[in-house]
């Protein structure tokens, strides 16, 4: 039993406790965690590339991405900095749809982004309708500070894994820690196991 904080009452949210992972609080805001300046890549220079351990790399222009079948996932998101936000609505392309264009035996993915950011995930976490390349949030084009024009959306992991300004997936046969994973955050990042930092 943790020691009582004298005089602390807390403001229990009426959030459904089965939806709020340990140590998280519910917010209506949409705070931002970024390590550097927000990049601005013109859409006519934008492309999305799947490369690495694949039969052959495949890329899509912005227009080609928009022409792929879109999905509109609704998800609860959980940031490692402690806020959670329920019922966020997105539009984007399922990673399953993109991966259907390549053949691979890879087990891991390194997602890479404008600005040099990377994050790593097991390929299994990117498939089965659990990951998207999202380009709309709340019915509007995704704002640059929130990762626009497109970000990865993997809501079952802490939100730093949902890399902003994503430009490609490099498929790998080995795990390769990404940016925050090298600077102290957990390698996998399951909010329900409170895997915030290395060692958790």
């Amino acid at each position, binding site marked *: *039993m*943790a*020691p*009582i*904080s*004298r*005089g*602390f*009452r*807390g*403001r*229990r949210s009426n959030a459904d406790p089965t939806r709020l992972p340990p*140590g998280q*609080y519910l*917010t209506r*805001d*949409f*705070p*931002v*965690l*970024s*390590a*550097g*300046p*927000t*990049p601005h890549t013109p859409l006519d220079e934008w492309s999305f590339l799947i490369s690495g351990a694949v039969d052959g790399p495949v890329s899509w222009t912005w227009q080609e991405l928009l022409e792929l079948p879109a999905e509109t996932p609704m998800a609860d998101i959980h940031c490692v*900095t*402690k*806020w959670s936000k329920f019922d966020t609505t997105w539009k984007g392309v399922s990673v399953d749809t993109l991966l259907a264009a390549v053949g691979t035996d890879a087990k891991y993915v390194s997602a890479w982004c404008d*600005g*040099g950011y990377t994050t790593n995930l097991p390929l299994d976490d990117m498939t089965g309708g659990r990951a998207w390349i999202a380009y709309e949030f709340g019915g509007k084009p995704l704002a640059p*500070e929130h990762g626009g024009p497109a970000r990865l959306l993997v809501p079952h992991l802490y939100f730093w894994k949902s890399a902003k300004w994503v430009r490609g997936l490099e498929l790998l046969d080995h795990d390769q820690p990404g*940016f*925050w994973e090298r*600077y*102290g*955050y957990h390698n996998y990042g399951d909010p329900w196991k409170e895997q*915030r*930092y*290395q*060692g*958790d």
Partner: protein
Amino acid sequence: MPQAPVVWRLATVRQLIDETPRARTLVLDVPDWPGHTAGQHVDVRLTADDGYQTERSFSIASAPERATVALTVERIDGGEVSPYLTEELRVGDTLELRGPFTSYFVWRTEDGGPLLLVAGGSGLVPLMAMLRHRAANSSTVEARLLLSARSLDDSLYRDELAELTADGLVTHVTFTREPPPDWRGFARRIDAEMLRTVWPSPHQRPRIYVCGPTAFVERAAELLVQLGHPPGAIRTERFGPSG
């Protein structure tokens, strides 16, 4: 690399310092504190008497050279944790603390400079840890601080910054809402001309740290990129309302 989990430690409040009408510094004794690097943060966990718990992250304000760990907390009206820490907490109280965490937004004297620190409001806290670290080591690394504050009441560590401003540190303050009477310095939102005045230029290849509310950091980082600083030289830490 496998690593043991960072444990929760029971910190004791040794001293409370009212920095501004809205911000208070908690000086904590932390048993077996492993030491930190300027710029890092800790997680704080509070427990109510019925077992309800909540956690928040706070930047460390103190230099690694100090035996105690200082956090400066700004009160968010209607927040859950910051009103407790700034109004209810007393000397001798305890709270659980875990850290220090993450090693990107950090600076050590041996990293060198010149250093350009850009702070919006209480975004000054982790940058102050860097300046205190610099002073504790009598470092002469060239350093420039640009602090954007709404008013005098919103500007942290004023007296200490005045004392630190020597040995290659120059501090600039801009008051965006309510400049003090007779104020001759900047009195507007951060802009390119201001950053050019503050120096260092991109030619000097400064290490840049920007911390503050999201909108402030977006603007400052964008201006710095437009001035020609390489995006990779600009480290940012943004915070939103976090209660």
